[in-house]
């Protein structure tokens, strides 16, 4: 046993190493990126195979291949990654895994570092029937990762470890074990043919679904016995005013809030989000007048518990999203306020009322005293950022009512003042698909650029182009668009912390590889008007934009200049130096 302060993401890596992970892949994003980065840093030393894939779907598929060949695998991604890989995730639940697999999906309640949506990825449990574990703290990151591999091994099913920003980016003391020599990473995979299990074709596919549902029943029984669903203060059940059911980081806020209020209530802390341990839940809620479900984002657990209570004909009142927000992350204060409401307590009646009062009111009072709104500091492009040149030149060259299609990367800052050059933004690679629709809808004479009322320019980064952009471009060419695409090639995946991509000639392990030339890909997609230039040559860029906007076919400008931050910084050092 050793103890160390670790970041949640580092604890996940540690747990996976102890579980004997041999194959690691994923796609960078916030707040999961440090998992992949740490694995890539130690891969050679530990004898693990690790990579950044081109996107999350490919990552999952590679891990499926590794698993079918007998190697333990881990895939890491941010919330939206699970949307991208879901097409293969669902059949994977049917086939099951051969060697254990853990999929880390990191959500970002409050969207601290996410555009797109405040996604609660736990919902995929219902779609896929894949077990989901929710750690609350760094110790649990470590333990649940190990447990995830155990569950996966026992039931031949992938396991999702669902984390959130306040868990991934939490630092705390972790107690961990030695890495047993029996769990040394392996590279001796062997693919043994088994089409019966690996091909999800009809009629077998429905049989597989049946097998999956039967498996879920067994996993449910396992969850009933699992220590990670734990009841605290069980003696109080039945004679306290309220019981609390909680999961993930919310558990920590609940403990803090109860301590603050001097309350000692029974708590059921669920480590399993899915499957829900019905019997354990029933045991907990039976005989309680009221139960408050404390979970972030969607009220999935609350709904599950309402069903359990109804089926058992219980009178227990189940509360949750009626007193807690569905938007934004939770914290201790929000839970204190919910508890006061549910228990009909007045702040002043409490023993330590002064403290609570200051807690709930002080900040508001202070701000009120200040009579001051503190202006928002918008994120901005770094000094010398190549996107600055690109955006400025395009703005000057494009006509007034040009539509700017945004995509996901540092250049999203185009949407903030003073640029204001982003008319929509959705998901990685989406700029071109949406541009295409706009062009087709607004140009009656379709193919003729001159006939279009508005010019449409898509702005997309190099990493995003490789991730999910190419199909959008092919569609534009195939369906005769006339729109302009600017690929902002800063030679790296910058926003998520500077990970390499296929355009760099270096892979995640730092090996020299074939450098994919974006212009070659664009040409192969059938684009005729292509220009590669350095945006520092502002005049040339402006002229090219003006020229390409008159074309009757798709045109592409590759605005190529290295990210200024990358240029300034030395190569990433040995420690887990997370980019600031």
């Amino acid at each position, binding site marked *: 046993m050793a103890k160390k302060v670790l970041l949640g993401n580092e604890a996940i890596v540690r747990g996976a190493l102890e579980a004997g992970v041999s194959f690691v892949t994923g796609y960078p994003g916030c707040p999961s990126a440090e998992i992949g980065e740490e694995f890539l840093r130690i891969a050679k030393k530990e004898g693990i195979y690790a990579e950044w894939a081109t996107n999350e779907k490919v990552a999952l598929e590679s891990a499926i291949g590794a698993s079918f060949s007998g190697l333990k695998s881990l895939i890491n991604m941010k919330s939206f990654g699970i949307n991208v890989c879901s097409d293969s995730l669902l059949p994977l639940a049917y086939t099951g895994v051969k060697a254990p697999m853990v999929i880390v999906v990191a959500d970002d309640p409050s969207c601290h*570092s996410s555009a797109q949506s405040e996604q609660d990825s736990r919902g995929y449990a219902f779609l896929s029937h894949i077990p989901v574990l929710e750690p609350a703290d760094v110790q649990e990151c470590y333990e649940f990762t190990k447990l995830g591999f155990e569950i996966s091994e026992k039931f031949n099913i992938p396991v999702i470890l669902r984390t959130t*920003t306040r868990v991934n980016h939490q630092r705390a003391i972790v107690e961990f074990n030695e890495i047993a020599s029996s769990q040394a990473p392996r590279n001796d995979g062997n693919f043994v043919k088994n089409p019966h299990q690996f091909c999800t074709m009809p009629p077998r596919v429905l049989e597989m679904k049946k097998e999956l549902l039967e498996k879920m029943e067994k996993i449910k029984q396992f969850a009933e016995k699992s220590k990670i669903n734990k009841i605290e203060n069980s003696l109080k059940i039945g004679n306290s005013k309220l019981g609390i059911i909680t999961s993930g980081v919310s558990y920590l806020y609940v403990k803090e809030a109860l301590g603050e209020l001097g309350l000692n209530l029974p708590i059921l802390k669920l480590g399993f989000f899915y499957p829900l341990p019905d019997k354990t839940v029933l045991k907990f809620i039976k005989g309680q007048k009221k139960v408050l479900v404390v979970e972030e984002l969607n009220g999935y657990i609350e709904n599950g518990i309402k069903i359990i209570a109804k089926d058992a004909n219980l009178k227990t009142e189940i509360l949750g999203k009626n007193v807690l927000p569905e938007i934004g992350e939770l914290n201790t204060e929000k839970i204190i306020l919910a508890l006061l409401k549910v228990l009909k307590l007045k702040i002043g009646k409490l023993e330590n009322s002064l403290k609570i009062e200051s807690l709930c009111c002080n900040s508001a009072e202070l701000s009120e005293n200040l009579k001051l709104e503190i202006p928002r500091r918008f994120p901005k492009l770094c000094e010398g950022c190549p996107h600055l040149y690109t955006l400025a030149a395009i703005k000057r060259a494009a006509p007034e009512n040009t539509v700017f299609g945004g995509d996901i990367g540092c250049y999203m800052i185009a949407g903030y003042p003073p640029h204001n050059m982003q008319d929509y933004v959705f998901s990685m690679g989406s700029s071109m698909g949406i541009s295409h629709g706009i062009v087709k809808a607004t140009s009656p004479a379709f193919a003729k650029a001159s006939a279009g009322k508005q010019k449409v320019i898509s702005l997309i980064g190099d990493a995003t182009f490789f991730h999910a952009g190419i199909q959008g471009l092919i569609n534009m060419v195939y369906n005769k668009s006339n729109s302009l695409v600017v690929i902002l090639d800063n030679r790296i995946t910058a926003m998520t912390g500077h990970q390499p991509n296929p355009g760099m000639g270096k892979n995640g392990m730092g090996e020299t590889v074939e450098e994919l030339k974006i212009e070659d890909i664009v040409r192969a997609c059938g684009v005729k008007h292509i220009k590669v230039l350095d945006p520092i040559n502002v005049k040339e860029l402006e002229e090219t934009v003006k020229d390409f906007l008159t074309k009757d076919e798709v045109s592409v400008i590759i605005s190529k200049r290295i990210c200024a931050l990358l240029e300034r910084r030395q190569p990433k050092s040995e420690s887990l130096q997370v980019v600031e």
Partner: protein
Amino acid sequence: MKNFNIIIAGVGGQGLITLVKIITEAAFIEGCDVKSSELHGLSQRGGSVIVHIRFGKKIYSPLVKTGGADLIIGLEELEGLRAHVFAGPQTKFLVNKYFSPFIGTLPEEKIMENLNKIAKNNLYLVEASKICKEKLQNEVVSSLYLLGFCVNEKLIPLSGGSIFEAIKKTMPEKFVDLNIKAFELSKNI
């Protein structure tokens, strides 16, 4: 010992994460339970960043409550002021006399006026960036200078020795000297 709650506020790129690493490690060295929460990503590109550190006997939540900070370290003036929601009547404010303006910001005098209004006698204004730039030709280590100031002025219940050890344990070797220099600089001024 009562739990100790710190908020560090600054602008992305000012070395906040380094400070979190060092303080959490130092608290661990002193035998405390400790939790922190930091943010990476979009907020980092020159946006506002707030990190939370808590240590003491037993820590559950990694987040400091509104009004619950014992110490607020502002690496930039406006960001120090922005963190005032975490301040209660006893909170100590240590603010770097460094201003990073942007379009639509408050004027510096107004920030100072409000900081004084909130923190009253508990405001410590220190020219960390300026001093580090002059003496060490490096502004980013001003966060370490401020940490040194906290220890000297007993704004933080951690010993210089533990922080020293924490710097050595958490920083890449080539940066240790510079950071220790910045940490010790505040003693001599």
